């Protein structure tokens, strides 16, 4: 059923939000009082912070009169919304039908092993979040993954790991500079 992404299970890492709530003011002004505004509001908040912080839910509720329970219900219903912060790069491994029959499972397993995270989790260095998506619509290039805006096709377990490692090397070089 479609209610999977409740706040982080262990309780250890429920984010204490220290976010700048003034960033969402323009969004509130744009959608306040408009009918059907709940989803665009949440999408807008996520576009700013990468996830929907608890404090943003509360501010939206105060400003627009939308009920917290309704917002939480919608945010946990749709796959797009995240309730905890994400890494700098989001890896979306496609698990559409075409990718599945071409071995998407192996791609996910190899990445999980290499990054030491499970689906939906973020690496401790906050560089990568690993996700599974239903279909990216690039079926002829299966199996496929998307990192940020870039799509990579015709993958194998080892080529997928190599791509991620190259990004990681670039990031450490930038840090070292």
């Amino acid at each position: 059923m479609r209610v999977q992404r409740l706040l982080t299970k262990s309780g250890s890492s429920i984010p204490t939000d220290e976010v700048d709530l003034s960033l969402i003011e323009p969004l509130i002004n744009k959608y306040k009082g408009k009918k059907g505004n709940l989803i665009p509001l949440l999408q807008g908040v996520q576009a700013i912070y990468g996830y929907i912080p608890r404090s943003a839910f509360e501010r939206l509720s105060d400003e627009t009169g939308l009920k917290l329970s309704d917002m939480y219900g919608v945010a946990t219903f749709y796959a797009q919304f995240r309730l905890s912060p994400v890494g700098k790069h989001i890896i979306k491994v496609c698990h559409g039908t075409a990718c599945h029959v071409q071995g998407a499972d192996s791609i996910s397993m190899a990445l999980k092993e290499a990054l030491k995270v499970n689906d939906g989790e973020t690496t401790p260095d906050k560089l990568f979040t690993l996700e599974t998506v239903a279909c990216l619509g690039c079926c002829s290039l299966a199996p496929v993954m998307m990192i940020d805006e870039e799509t990579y096709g015709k993958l194998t377990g080892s080529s997928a790991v190599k791509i991620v490692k190259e990004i990681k090397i670039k990031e450490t070089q930038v840090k070292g500079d």
Partner: protein
Amino acid sequence: MAETKVIVGLGSCGIAAGANKVYNKLKALKEADNLDFELTKTSCIGMCFREPLVEVVDENGSMIYGDVDEAKAIEIIQQHVLGHNPIKEYVVKTDLFSTPDQSYFEGQVKIALRNCGYIDPENIHEYEARGGYQALRKIAHESISPEQIIQTIIDSGLRGRGGGGFPTGMKWRFARANQSDEKYIICNADEGDPGAFMDRSLLEGDPHAVIEGMIIGAYAIGATEGVIYCRAEYPLAIKRLNIALAQAREHGYLGKNIMGIQGFNLDIYIKEGAGAFVCGEETALMASIEGKRGMPSKRPPFPAEKGLWQKPSNINNVETFANVPYIVANGAESYNKYGTEKSKGTKVFALTGKIKHGGLVEVPMGTPLRDIIYKLGGGIQNDKKFKAVQLGGPSGGCIPEHLLDIQVDYEQVTATGAIMGSGGMVVMDETTCMVDVARFFLDFTQKESCGKCTFCRIGTKRMLEILTRITEGEGQEGDIEKLEELALQVRESSLCGLGQTAPNPVLTTIKYFRHEYEAHIRDKKCPAHSCKKLLTYEIDPNKCTGCTVCAVKCPVKAIDGERKKVHHINQEICIKCGDCYNNCRFDAITKS
């Protein structure tokens, strides 16, 4: 003015295959030496298996080059554009001579996809130059009434291309019959089937055709506002739709008194979906537009009576709308001359999986399934043995070899236990496990169930547990019967299409591939060598040369061994990805 045009295919698959790099290279070449050719872009022509594609049009005609990278792009410019000497061996499509890939287009009839790959989707003039907005113009100039439009659509035989197959004209007639001060026309662009990308390609390649179809639909039913509900996972489609909507407003195709028709006012806006497969169901889709959880509601009342915001509404799919301008401009006969008795016109399919020529095809209804797979699709990858083709995504089913001679139309596909669906066609070969395919789809529908109906919420979960158990070698006698019983109950007791059709992948695989289920349950074997828990990779010490390729390729470092000595796979670490098996040049790796 430049005589030669160079056109790069920049659809999502093209870009994923590297088309942006090719475009930028061409641009740099042109600018560096101020070369005399016109560089433009288009979208998907359907030959995904040859992306990136670059078309050169000169005084001799058009030639499309396939598998173009930066190096090939330089060659094409130097030899063809500047040297007037085409590189024939790279050409994949042309009318000037025959190419090995031309069979891909033989038998295709492009109506919905008539402009995809031929126009720059961000340029309204290119759409107009190929007959775009002529249908709307015709309605205004010849004062065609909404009733006449509806009759034309009924006569054309067009049925809902999202999978429902309900006659579009009838749907419009119901929506027209309900009087209201506000009415909505909605385009369902929430293409959720995993393995389908027809709507994405259409929206990216020809957004104006969909918009013109919606405008005509709005005129026919008397709608005052239009909404396109599009997946957020399709950013390029949304970008191009927004550009097209702005152009349509600027040119007076949207706005007040459109084309001089008094009182015909319409604007269209985009609503981005937030990722929920069930929102493809029309009542759930409308709930989502209203900002609620996308849960289906009981019908009646039907959307034509009480839809979005409780007003009469009409929902059609992207491909359905794209057909409408063609039918109105050319007459019902131009469309219903194709097809079978009850299924008229053409249908777009996304041909994927273990097929040589994967891509987007549009064929007349009634084309034999075998022709689509073997003539257009070129047969099975690596010449392996065909096992099944999956139609209709999570709501559909798997069609086996002995039914390949059916003609593809709504009636014959439904008779196999699959459904026509929106057009996903995933080909599977002997290495695909059919129990695993059923498990894959159940996993999908179980996660996507909105949870409203008990049988869909819990029944799919129980079915998934049984299927998972079978694929892990823990199946028990009686599991198949239990699956069949649950399948019937889920089908009978669910409110919407998601639950009613969720058992289809299980029922069709049991029907046609029962022996595979039995092999898993009784012998604890996966005949396709695909289920990971029932699979072991080992190295044959007599054949291993110690070349180290497998150890290097292994993504989890499960293989150790010294150079020139026999290697060994650590079964505890092995994730059974098969990279070693696929890369060993000495056949030293066995799977069992």
